């Protein structure tokens, strides 16, 4: 197309981005690393490593506990990260930002605190068929405890949510809708705004599992109009062991604490306790302070690259990889939704994904193989496993070319 150069955004300088990630300089089995497993865990830029180091070497003490200077500084740094998270997802208030270990813990928190308070026998929780186990098992557990029923909306052969079937599964007993924003196994972007609209028309709250969405797109919880949003730090270039639960303030305020301990109380006697305010009510025990600070730095790093720029860059890689893979004989793409994030799942005729993974590894190429903690969607496709390449802000077209060469080598070896 004849787009005027004036409207084009500046070219995305992937070489400069790569230089921010020290691990990308290393070799695996004598070959330069091609890291295509960011959907499992992304790598961390120097900005994050330095923020954590700065905190550990100059600021560390326990938060919210001391009158001494270090404790105050640590508290300020920790709370500043909360404010960064709030801004990043456009929450109304930092009281709506709860630091947790990750997406899994965030969903478990909602299942236990909100779920046990709101679900009774015969109630229903509606998920989809393509959820990660972290958005299935907590609901199974709370359903078993309350007598509620877990229902799952089907997907189409392309891996898109069947929205009509979804609507039909809504009933007068549906109490919560919990769906992935982006499928980890397939990359499908779900129509979450539409889902929220449908749900709210019936007064049903919506939880979004945003683990795979936050790294790839601008997430605005107010525009999405979701009630809960969960994501992990380590998938968005931050540390492991830190994640976020966003909750609409009115909902969080009415929910009981999930875990009890320090930090989450205002006063304790042997008979009873007064719980702390939001968000600390949900942060029992000493939190992952350095993780939160690293996460704040990661989100600032993503902002510095530009979320739209990252998304556009990754989309180019996804298109290239999908077309190149689909052109290879015997390769089948699994999940061909119209709207996808930077994930390409595939199988090779007659070759198990683990063998693909081992052979690519010998070429220095890291991909994920297996069921991706999403066994129901694998069962839907009748597959025990797939090979999955996923892209991050630091991948380039050379990575895609190496992947294609690697897949060719797999075919040669297996004949």
């Amino acid at each position, binding site marked *: 197309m004849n787009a005027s150069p004036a409207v084009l955004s500046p070219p995305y300088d992937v070489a400069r981005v790569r230089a921010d990630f020290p691990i990308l300089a290393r070799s695996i089995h004598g070959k330069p690393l091609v890291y295509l497993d960011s959907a499992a865990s992304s790598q961390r830029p120097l900005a994050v490593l330095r923020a954590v180091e700065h905190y550990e070497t100059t600021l560390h003490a326990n938060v919210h506990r001391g009158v001494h200077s270090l404790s105050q500084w640590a508290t300020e740094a920790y709370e500043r990260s909360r404010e960064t998270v709030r801004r990043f997802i456009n929450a109304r208030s930092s009281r709506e930002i709860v630091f947790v270990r990750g997406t899994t813990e965030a969903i478990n928190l909602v299942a236990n605190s909100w779920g046990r308070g709101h679900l009774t026998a015969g109630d229903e929780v509606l998920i989809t068929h393509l959820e990660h186990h972290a958005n299935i098992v907590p609901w199974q557990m709370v359903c078993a405890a309350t007598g509620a029923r877990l229902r799952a909306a089907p997907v189409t052969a392309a891996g898109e949510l069947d929205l009509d079937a979804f609507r039909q599964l809504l009933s007068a007993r549906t109490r919560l809708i919990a769906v992935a924003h982006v499928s980890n196994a397939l990359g499908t972007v779900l129509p979450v705004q539409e889902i929220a609209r449908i749900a709210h028309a019936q007064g049903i709250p919506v939880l979004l599992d945003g683990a795979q969405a936050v790294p790839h797109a601008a997430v605005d919880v107010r525009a999405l109009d979701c009630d809960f949003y969960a994501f992990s730090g380590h998938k968005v270039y931050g540390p492991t062991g830190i994640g976020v639960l966003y909750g609409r303030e009115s909902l969080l305020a009415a929910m009981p604490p999930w875990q009890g301990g320090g930090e989450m109380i205002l006063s304790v006697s042997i008979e009873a306790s007064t719980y702390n305010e939001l968000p600390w009510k949900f942060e029992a025990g000493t939190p992952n302070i350095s993780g939160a600070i690293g996460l704040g730095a990661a989100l600032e790093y993503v902002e510095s690259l530009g979320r739209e720029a990252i998304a556009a860059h990754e989309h180019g890689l996804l298109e290239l990889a999908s077309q190149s893979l689909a052109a290879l004989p015997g390769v089948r793409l699994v999940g061909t939704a119209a709207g996808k994030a930077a994930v390409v799942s595939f199988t090779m005729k007659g070759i198990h994904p*683990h063998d693909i993974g081992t052979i690519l590894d010998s070429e220095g190429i890291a991909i994920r193989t297996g069921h991706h903690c999403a*066994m129901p969607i694998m069962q839907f496709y009748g597959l025990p496993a797939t090979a999955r390449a996923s892209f991050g802000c630091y991948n380039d077209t050379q990575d895609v070319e190496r992947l294609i060469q690697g897949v060719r080598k797999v075919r040669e070896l*297996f004949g």
Partner: protein
Amino acid sequence: MDLKELYREVILDHNRSPRNFGRLDPADASAAGRNPLCGDVLDLTLRMDGDRLTDLRFEGQGCAISMASASLMGEAVKGRRRDEIERLYADVHALLTGGESVDAQQLGKLAALGGVAEFPARVKCASLCWHTLNAALAQKHAPVTTE
């Protein structure tokens, strides 16, 4: 790290056309092997004559290493006594984990699995069938003593 060591021709051949594939019905013992991390599935059925394994079949799905290992195991254990199988398993285990040196002569075709030791992530693929066989033999053991 030598891929050709892992994917030797014998392995590729047994993966492509696994021997003793299927199910015995009736069977004297059976066991299901599952590798939850990989999604590997292996169902093993046995016929026994006293202490001797007279026939076996396996079915399931998994990577080339797990399929070939099950196929090679079937050929190696058929017709053997329980104690012989136990000794063989000890040798295979040592081979897979790269422990003490193993007498390749003893192992016969199973020695083709020797490359696995260099790929620690794949040891569980090769050993799934042996764990499943142990479970089936143990299951057979119990009824045998009460009959």
